[in-house]
């Protein structure tokens, strides 16, 4: 278990407190020089050293107080790992190497000069976030804070507006109003089932129980799916905020986050976030002075793929072998210890603050036009290349060469797959042979490529067949 010290800060006992703190923090951050080093996925390829070197070089240059080095979540361009973003210029550097860091500090951080070799496609014209097609074609919503905040500092989250929606919901809205907004948003479960979230909550509330429970399913384990990981690692406070609002809406007294143990960073960040939120009065008794109390407990999975299934997850939370139970009754009717229980996925909860901010109807409009009435919300979707080459002598090299494009991007639902894959960065010529979706997308063959990316549609489980062959 990794315990990081929780910094103490002022207790926040009302939405007004929260707003004034946010203003203070925003004012202080205005125009600051910051080096945002991805400290999640990129850790696998040297981000820790990169970040440490930035720190030591900043110190050596006597720039402490002028330049902040910040550990952040994923910037999305994982193929360029380790990635850092330099504020206030919004310059994106990938493939950072320790020995060049003094140059980056002196040239880019202090003066805004671009160093070509670290740029996207080694092209100086693609130095800035807004210049990179990969980002330009995205509309970051649930990912809006990922990569921009230090996930282990609640003040960063507050400064970016996290918890404001919770303040609004808990102090100005009745629980049923929230359920109505979520219904109006037509938000559907992002875990793969796609069941309308608001309807599920309503069913839960119709069932009498001694207690109600809220469970955040972060047992993401389908191959190729890692968006929950990006959220938990990069912006845990938004997930917590979504859970607080949801728990209030269904009048739950206790929440759980069930995270895979294979995501140690996510576990660490969410635990830290909970400790900080509790310390500051954003979790626990009488949240933001609303009179509503909630505690959230993190449980780590113990290595059972099946526990991503909701009834198996409940069994596991109850301390049982993670065996799925027959449905009905569904957990919303009889879940944790037989009480009405809501289980939603990480990303579903992350959508909830947006719905409160924008109103359910407006949120609904954020989906793709064609599918607006039925498929609202935004799918945050990992992409990576793959091929089926099987020449034993060269397979490793070929795989590397043919599949260089891995990243996390965020697009509205309903977008054709072809267009999602169209804006690939420079590299060897490629054609789409197979798309392995996250979640329940299964595989898409080339002739499916005009098919719409739709989390709720079941595609043929082609990939499994390909692999078996």
């Amino acid at each position, binding site marked *: 278990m990794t315990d990081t010290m929780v910094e103490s800060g002022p207790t926040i006992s009302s939405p007004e407190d929260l707003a004034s703190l946010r203003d203070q923090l925003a004012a202080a951050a205005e125009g600051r020089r910051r080096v945002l080093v991805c400290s999640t996925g990129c850790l696998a390829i040297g981000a820790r050293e990169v970040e440490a070197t930035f720190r030591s070089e900043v110190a050596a240059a006597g720039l402490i107080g002028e330049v902040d080095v910040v550990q952040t979540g994923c910037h999305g361009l994982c193929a360029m790992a380790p990635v850092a973003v330099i504020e206030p210029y919004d310059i994106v550097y990938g493939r950072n190497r320790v020995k060049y860091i003094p140059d980056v500090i002196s040239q880019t951080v202090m003066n805004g000069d671009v160093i070509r070799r670290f740029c996207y496609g080694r092209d100086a014209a693609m130095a800035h976030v807004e210049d990179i097609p990969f980002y330009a074609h995205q509309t970051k919503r649930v990912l809006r804070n990922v990569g921009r905040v230090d996930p282990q500092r609640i003040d960063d989250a507050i400064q970016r507006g996290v918890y404001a929606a919770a303040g609004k919901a808990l102090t100005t809205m009745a629980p049923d109003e929230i359920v109505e907004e979520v219904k109006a948003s037509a938000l559907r479960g992002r875990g793969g089932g796609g069941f309308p979230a608001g309807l599920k909550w309503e069913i839960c509330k119709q069932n009498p129980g001694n207690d109600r429970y809220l469970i955040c399913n972060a047992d993401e384990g389908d191959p190729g799916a890692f968006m929950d990981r990006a959220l938990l690692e990069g912006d845990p406070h938004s997930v917590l905020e979504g859970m607080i609002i949801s728990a209030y809406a269904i009048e739950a007294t206790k929440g759980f986050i069930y995270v895979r143990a294979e995501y140690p960073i996510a576990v660490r960040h969410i635990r830290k976030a909970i400790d900080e939120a509790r310390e500051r009065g954003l979790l626990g008794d009488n949240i933001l002075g609303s009179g509503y109390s909630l505690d959230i407990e993190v449980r780590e999975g113990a290595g059972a793929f099946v526990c991503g299934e909701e009834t198996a997850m409940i069994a596991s939370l109850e301390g049982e072998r993670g065996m799925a139970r*027959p449905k009905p009754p569904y957990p919303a009717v009889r879940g944790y210890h037989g009480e009405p229980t809501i289980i939603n996925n990480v990303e579903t909860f992350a959508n909830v603050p947006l719905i409160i901010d924008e109103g359910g109807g407006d949120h609904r409009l954020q989906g793709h036009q064609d599918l607006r009435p039925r498929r609202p919300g935004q799918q945050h979707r990992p992409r990576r290349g793959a091929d089926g080459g099987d020449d034993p002598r060269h397979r490793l090299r070929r795989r590397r060469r043919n599949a260089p494009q891995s990243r996390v991007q965020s697009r509205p639902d309903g977008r054709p797959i072809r267009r999602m894959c169209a804006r690939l960065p420079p590299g060897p010529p490629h054609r789409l042979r197979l798309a392995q979706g996250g979640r329940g997308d299964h595989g898409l063959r080339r002739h499916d490529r005009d098919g719409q990316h739709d989390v709720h549609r079941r595609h043929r489980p082609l990939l499994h067949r390909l692999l078996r062959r």
Partner: protein
Amino acid sequence: MTVLSALKTVNLTLDGREIIAHEGDTVLEAALTAGIDIPRLCHDPRLKPVGACRLCVVEIEGERGLLTACTMEVAEGMVVETETDRLAAKRKTVLELILDDHRVTCPTCDKNGDCALMDYSYRYQADQFAFGGYKPGPVEPNFATGNKAIAFDPQLCINCGRCVRICDEVVMASALTFKMRAASVEVTTPFDMPLNETSCVLCGLCITTCPTGAMYDRAALGQGQIKDLEKVQTVCPYCGVGCTIELNVNRANNRIVRVTSQVGSVPNDGNLCVKGKFGFEYVHSPERLTTPLIKENGEFREASWDEALELAGRRLRELRDEHGPDSIAFLSSCRCTNEENYLMQKVARTAGATNNVDQCATTCHAPTVAGLAATFGSGAMTNAIDEIKDVDTLFIIGSNPTEAHPIIGLEMKKALKKGAKMVVCDPRKTWVAEHADIHIQHKPGTDNMLINAMMRHILEEELHDAEFVEGRCENFEAFSKNLQDYTVAEAAELCDVPAELIMRAAEMYAAGEPSSIFYTLGITEHTSGTENVQNLANLAMLCGQIGKRSSGVNPLRGQNNVQGGCDMGAMHGDFPGYQKVDDEVVRFKFAEAWGVDIPTNKGGRVTDFIEQAGDGVLRGFYVFGEDPVLSEPNQAKVIKSLENLEFLVCQEIFMSETAKLADVILPATSFAEKDGTFTNTERRVQRVRKAVEPPGQAKADWEIICLMSTAMGHPMSYDNAGEIFDEMASLTPSYGGMSFERIDEVGLQWPCPTPDHPGTGFLHAGSFTRGLGLFHEIRFREAAELPDDDYPYILSTGRTLYNYNIGNMTQKSDAIRQKQSKNFVEMHASDAERLGVANDDLVTVTTRRGEVTVKAVVGDRTRPGALWMPFHFVDQPTNRITNDAFDNITRTAEYKVCAATVKKSAEVPAAT
């Protein structure tokens, strides 16, 4: 349509039939109630449904896919199809998949013909080779290998989980579990430990719930498949719970092959304990007595019935005639039927012309009979067993139900699962104590101090039921004045328990909705036994926790028919139904019925008989199905007294320690070899049926008693046990409405005065049997023998789960002997450390009356300074050292407290 209770009902359509079901029922329950049999393998009505086998899938209109009937609740207007082509195809596939993982061994399997998997495979014509067929690997040893009770064949296991769940949910022994998952999943014990090293209680429920032959009775293997067996419904001969059992008899060799019990049976719902499941080898033991024996020159020789009866009858009659009614005595047996007990007291009072008749209640629950009769007007368990599960606060004192009354223990576990609170007062950490909300581990022999302090606290806090006290009781003022002499602080000191616990316990009991008291011999086997019982009655009356469902004062009776033995009047002062001998009217009634003058001598109790034998007052003694040498305290004195008798006749199934002293032994029958009735602890009169022929010349006990009566000069004969029962019922108002016909399937609880009376679940509703409940002023008195410098420990005795009383029945079972075959003493680790005693060391326990050398069981079950021993073993018998001090009213011995000392023995433990 059966009458539905006040529960909300739901209308649904099952296979085109309109059905009414209870809200909350599952589709499966509704179907079974309606007589529609949905196939199922993982379902047992005693267990929470899990929907694991998927055989019970049904089609429900408007639902996608097939749903498991065992987990789907009924809903208004639901339309269900339980048997369609689609379902049949699905079930066939499910069965074929199961068969692919099940070694088909039907020809050699015990379960052949009685196997759910076999039945359904036949019904749906499932092909065992549809998926290739089971390919058996090598047979590996498993957790049950070598266990003499339970055997397990994993190749037959279909992983339905019934054994694991019943062990966990019903028995709460949790000895079994699944290990691994998916295709590797397997039933086993923790770390694959041998069963007898786990928390297994050998109840065998894993066997009875198993839908295949995977779990089976080790000893029954090859002894008979269902086609070879006849199931005879009867009553378990062990403790007072009176479980309904089926003896599976193979007529070809006149043997009981195994014991089963049907789900739904009363009062045990198909549940059994180790004794009821595996304790029957004694019936066929080669040690059974098969012929009458007469002692000549100190040796027994075989004799004919005529010769033995003539001698026994003549000698008893001669002694009676020569020395008067107090010179002979009759000891009846609570192990035997009501009919036999009725006859025994009848013979005593007719042929014997004496009221010197008793039975073993004196050894155990006589204080209950006396104490509750004085308080309420009748001395029996006030409530029914099936009310226990609805108790809100269980108050258990001096009772170890999960070992001594395991099936009542299961009912208590049900209550706990429903959220009941539990207060346990016991010097020893029993299962219930460990699972209690409050465990008061008081010093043995301080019960009245404790109860008085609790009542004082209840009164001070005004937690009592003033209305109940006012309206239904008397003598409250004197009672409450007496309590002024007792305080919680004083009790805390004397009982050596935190005052806080005493107060919380009192509050918890007073607040229960409802609360019920359960006690056993920890209350009665004291020199203050009757007072202890009266004080518990005080507590119940004070809080108004009596006279309603699931609430009262509940003595758990120790022997299968100790309730019946008392009911039948095998006591010096009572005729059947507690009609008093000293009541002229009653005496006249019996004199009329029996055609004799009823003797007027006072008579005594078994403990009196033994003392009088020693004093030379008692000269002739007829002992029937009892072994006072082992069961009475201070064994050396008992033997000396009995040796002083001029004539001793024993009617026995084994050569007991007492029988060895006899002049004549009459070979008797076990419960499995005769007809009759037992009355269980909840006053339920149940049918005992003959299942096998007795060995050799052994005769049914009621026949022998008749022959003895005749031999004593008072001819007596009956055609069958039912005739005796009818005579008894005609003379016994509380049994008046019963007959063998009425109790054929399910027994009735007395009082049942008329043929149309449904029997009585709980007593004292509205008013007490005696009218007003009588408060007694109970003073605390110390036990007769307290620890001192020479004997610094307090020794208590009691029963274990695996053995029964003197052990002569249970110790014949290989399975039980394998688990527990030797006497032992439990001592606290701190004492053991000081004495240099390690677990399993031999120690010598000494009292003023003798010593025994037994194994030490070191731990924290007893209090420091306390010792505990079972009394089941002939070798190194515990009653060699217990104290022959008696209750002032009922002459029950103080088995629970005597002063003892213990030291490490020089003997080397025998290799095991």
